[in-house]
């Protein structure tokens, strides 16, 4: 059984990795090995091409057996990447896995420095620190916690829906929380989907009703997560359920109340139709909304504003589902894992005033056009502009709020393809001349290039040039009363003025406005752009730095439907892997009290955010509940008597790291 070794004679095995050329090209790996060999307690010092490969790991085992090693140091990449790999190798070799220390000479050295001498010097310093440190390592037991099999999915767009269904079909209990009154997200607003041109509603609505009817899924719409406590396997989540003023159990979605509302016409901007139509105070987002339950907007409902409404809606409802007294409730659930699929927001085109959105009525955003060409949209699919005309010429401007350091520097990945799709649909609906103004066409998905090809053959105009301005400034009679798009046709090298009747702005994808709050709520990170940060850009794309919390869909970065669905499936699989394993291994880096030294001063009690420290009133000593401790070490640093210690981060380990790092240099002595 590993873990029996004591701190007798220290025999260190040292391994430095070339990582192909990644380390070797900047750090003189041979010199590092030679340097390590001369350090105290180092028995074996080797260099190897790829330490993380099987032969690399086996090297450790062979040396442990042959040279009776009892400490292992590997100088290679970041411990965040391979510490687990090497600890397992050390354990396999028969040692306690914590008799191991890793030195990061790739991310922290070879990849960020260019001068070989300086980089090698730095690597040597870090190696020396590890040699000093590892001598103080002690055997530790691994910590395990059980995983609650219930899952929370946040966000009911296509990613959230797919993740919830995957988990529910695997027999897990899922709670799906959606902020809006219906699930469906952005996809529910789209008309057709690229590149196959199948109708979005046709493929989405069946999945929406599956969610509603699945015995393993609890669907809470019009609800938001209020707080999250606990840790992987054991999260306690409180969900705020906003009042719809409709009893969800009783409403059957007959919409009689909407019909009978005292408002004859809708007066409030309709969110689902992105403001292109009006709705009444009592409404349902769209006919296939899921759940099929209406809701009342208290901001505009007369009963809420004056209390003097005739309440024709109440009369109309034969199920007495309307409840003006409904209050917000907070529900508490316990889950083991969480999938965040909170989606994106479209770029606000007003931020680029040169394109005239909000100023010229016939300038539309792409999302508005999705509704405009949709058969169930505000015009029943007829392409009628805000001024009542039908367009004969349409200009689609790509990259609005994308690839632009003045707004968002990233490529939104979906706009090229949806612009092509809209170009096709607009041509089909109106037979208009359609111009695409693009910087680069990015059609890098399966059968996407073929779709681009089809569009070219449909004689859609493609002008390679980013548009400078959209104005109503006419310099030719043909431009009078129209919108003029000005761009350089960079393929030809000439500035062109293209008069059009309709401008479509292909707005980019942004993080949700409150992504920062959500991130804090779930204790995960965001990238600089504000999208949720994955644990590793390639190898852990749906994991986060917080165990048990996964991300899927466009909340992680701009994504189209196929990619969102694929990621949702991946996130569900990751959650399932955790659940089916039943437990998870935690770092044994918890804090503990050395009772003899504790003076019972209670300083530490206030330092612990997890209430893991209590004071034993009988003994007048502090005690730490290891199950609650998360291993931050704040109490350790704060204990005035030095009575609290932390496994893996003991004071003597850190002091020895310092002594190793700062071994006297010639300049230091006399």
């Amino acid at each position: 059984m590993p873990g029996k070794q004591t701190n007798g004679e220290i025999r260190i095995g040292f391994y430095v990795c070339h990582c192909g050329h990644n380390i070797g090209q900047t750090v003189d790996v041979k010199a590092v090995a030679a340097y390590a060999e001369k350090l105290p307690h180092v028995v074996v010092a080797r260099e190897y091409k790829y330490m993380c490969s099987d032969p690399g790991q086996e090297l450790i085992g062979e040396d442990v057996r042959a040279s009776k090693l009892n400490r292992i140091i590997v100088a290679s990449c970041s411990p965040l990447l391979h510490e687990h790999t090497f600890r397992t190798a050390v354990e396999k070799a028969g040692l306690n896995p914590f008799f191991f220390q890793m030195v990061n000479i790739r991310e922290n050295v070879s990849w960020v420095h260019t001068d070989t001498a300086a980089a090698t010097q730095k690597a040597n310093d870090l190696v020396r620190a590890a040699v000093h440190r590892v001598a103080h390592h002690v055997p530790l037991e691994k910590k395990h916690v059980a995983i609650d099999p219930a899952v929370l999915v946040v966000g009911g767009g296509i990613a959230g829906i797919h993740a919830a269904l995957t988990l529910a079909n695997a027999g897990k209990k899922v709670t799906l929380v959606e902020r809006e009154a219906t699930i469906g997200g952005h996809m529910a607003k789209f008309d057709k989907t690229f590149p196959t041109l199948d109708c979005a509603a046709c493929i989405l609505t069946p999945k929406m009703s599956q969610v509603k009817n699945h015995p393993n899924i609890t669907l809470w719409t019009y609800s938001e997560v209020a707080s999250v406590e606990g840790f992987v396997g054991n999260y306690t989540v409180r969900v705020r359920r906003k009042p719809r003023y409709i009893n969800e159990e009783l409403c059957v979605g007959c919409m009689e109340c909407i019909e009978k509302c005292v408002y004859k016409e809708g007066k409030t901007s309709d969110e689902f139709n992105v403001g292109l139509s009006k709705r009444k105070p009592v409404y349902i987002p769209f006919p296939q909304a899921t759940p099929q339950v209406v809701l009342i907007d208290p901001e505009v409902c007369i009963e809420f504003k004056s209390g003097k409404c005739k309440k024709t809606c109440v009369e109309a409802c034969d199920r007495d589902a309307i409840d003006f007294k409904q209050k917000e409730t907070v529900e508490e659930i316990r889950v083991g894992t969480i999938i965040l699929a909170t989606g994106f927001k479209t770029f606000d085109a007003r931020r680029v005033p040169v394109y005239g959105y909000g100023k010229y009525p016939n300038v539309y955003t792409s999302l508005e056009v999705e509704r405009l060409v949709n058969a169930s949209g505000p015009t029943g699919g007829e392409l009628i502009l805000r001024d009542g005309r039908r367009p004969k010429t349409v200009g689609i401007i790509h990259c609005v709020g994308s690839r632009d350091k003045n707004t968002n520097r990233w490529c939104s990945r979906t706009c090229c393809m949806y612009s092509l799709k809209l170009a096709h649909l607009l041509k089909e609906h109106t037979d208009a001349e359609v111009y695409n103004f693009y910087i680069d066409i990015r059609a890098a998905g399966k059968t996407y290039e073929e779709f681009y090809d089809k569009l070219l053959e449909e004689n859609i105009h493609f002008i390679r040039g980013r548009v400078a301005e959209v104005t109503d400034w006419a310099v030719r009679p043909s431009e009078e009363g129209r919108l003029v798009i000005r761009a350089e046709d960079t393929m030809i090298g000439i500035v062109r003025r293209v008069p059009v009747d309709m401008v479509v702005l292909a707005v980019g994808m942004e993080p949700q406005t409150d992504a920062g709050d959500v991130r804090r709520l779930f204790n995960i990170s965001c990238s600089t752009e504000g999208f949720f940060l994955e644990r590793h850009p390639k190898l852990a794309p749906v994991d986060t730095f917080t165990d048990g919390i996964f991300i899927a869909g466009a909340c992680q970065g701009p994504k189209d439907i196929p990619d969102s669905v694929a990621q949702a499936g991946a996130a569900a699989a990751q959650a399932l892997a955790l659940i089916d394993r039943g437990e998870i291994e935690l770092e044994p880096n918890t804090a503990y009290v050395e009772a003899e030294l504790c003076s019972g001063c209670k300083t530490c009690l206030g330092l612990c955010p997890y209430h893991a420290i209590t004071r034993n009133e009988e003994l007048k000593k502090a005690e730490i509940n290891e199950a609650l401790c998360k291993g931050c070490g704040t109490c350790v640093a704060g204990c005035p008597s030095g009575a609290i210690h932390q496994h893996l981060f003991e004071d003597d380990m850190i002091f020895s790291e310092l002594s190793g790092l700062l071994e006297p240099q010639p300049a230091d002595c006399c």
Partner: protein
Amino acid sequence: MTYLYYPGCSLRSTGRAYEESLLTVFRALEIPLKELDDWNCCGATSYVSIDETDAFALAARNLALAEAQSSDGSVQLIAPCSACYLVLSKTERYLEDYPDVNAKINAALDRAGLRYHGKVDVRHPLDVLVNDFGLEKIAKRIKHPLTGLEVACYYGCQTVRPFATYDHPQYPETMDKIVKVLGAEPIDWPLKTRCCGGSLTGTIQEAGLRLNRALLKEAKGRDADLVATCCPLCQHNLECYQPRINRMYDEDIDIPVAYFTQLMGIALGCDERELGMHRLMKKPSLKHIMHPKGASANAW
């Protein structure tokens, strides 16, 4: 707080009316203004085409002088001419952003016994009038509202970009707001920041004139009674070349071009001569607008 005032070369010749009206308006609003003593040319756009370090140094001398001549913590330096405003704020910004520029320029200043510590805020009068003084206070002092006058506010380029922070670089509204407070109606037009060509009217004249023709035609086409400017060069170009544009391109443009400060002065009831109205090629006819009910028209 006293504002330091940097006139610049143009306001002493072709743009005299700008200086006269600006000083008159600030006096009428009781905003204290003190001319920067012994200022030198900002270098405009030409100097930097020869030697960049010298161009910055030249501008920086003014900043250093301003700092030395003010006792305030942050020095407010008003530069009404677009080019001066741009060059001074650019110098100020680059001294802050680029340590190598800063080192070079302070070494140059040092040779003349000067030093610049980065305390100067370069301001345009539009910014000061709207954001420091305030539209409401202006409104209270209006004596002759310019009711019915349709004004094309023309900002030109360098007062709004790229270093100005008080307004949008392509769709500014500061002057429109002032014009509205004066009782006039600013027209909405897309060319308010499109370049007038600057010195091109003197060098490659055809290109310069075409730019001005486009601006004037559009202002006229949108029924503006007058173009209001905030830059001496824009005013000169738009006003003085109208006959030549008409001749060369067979146009019929005859639209007054005045400084926004002149319009303010009229609304505030200042003396016409003190506003330099006599220096305009074509005086805007405001009589019927200002005194619709036949009130006494002493100023006009």
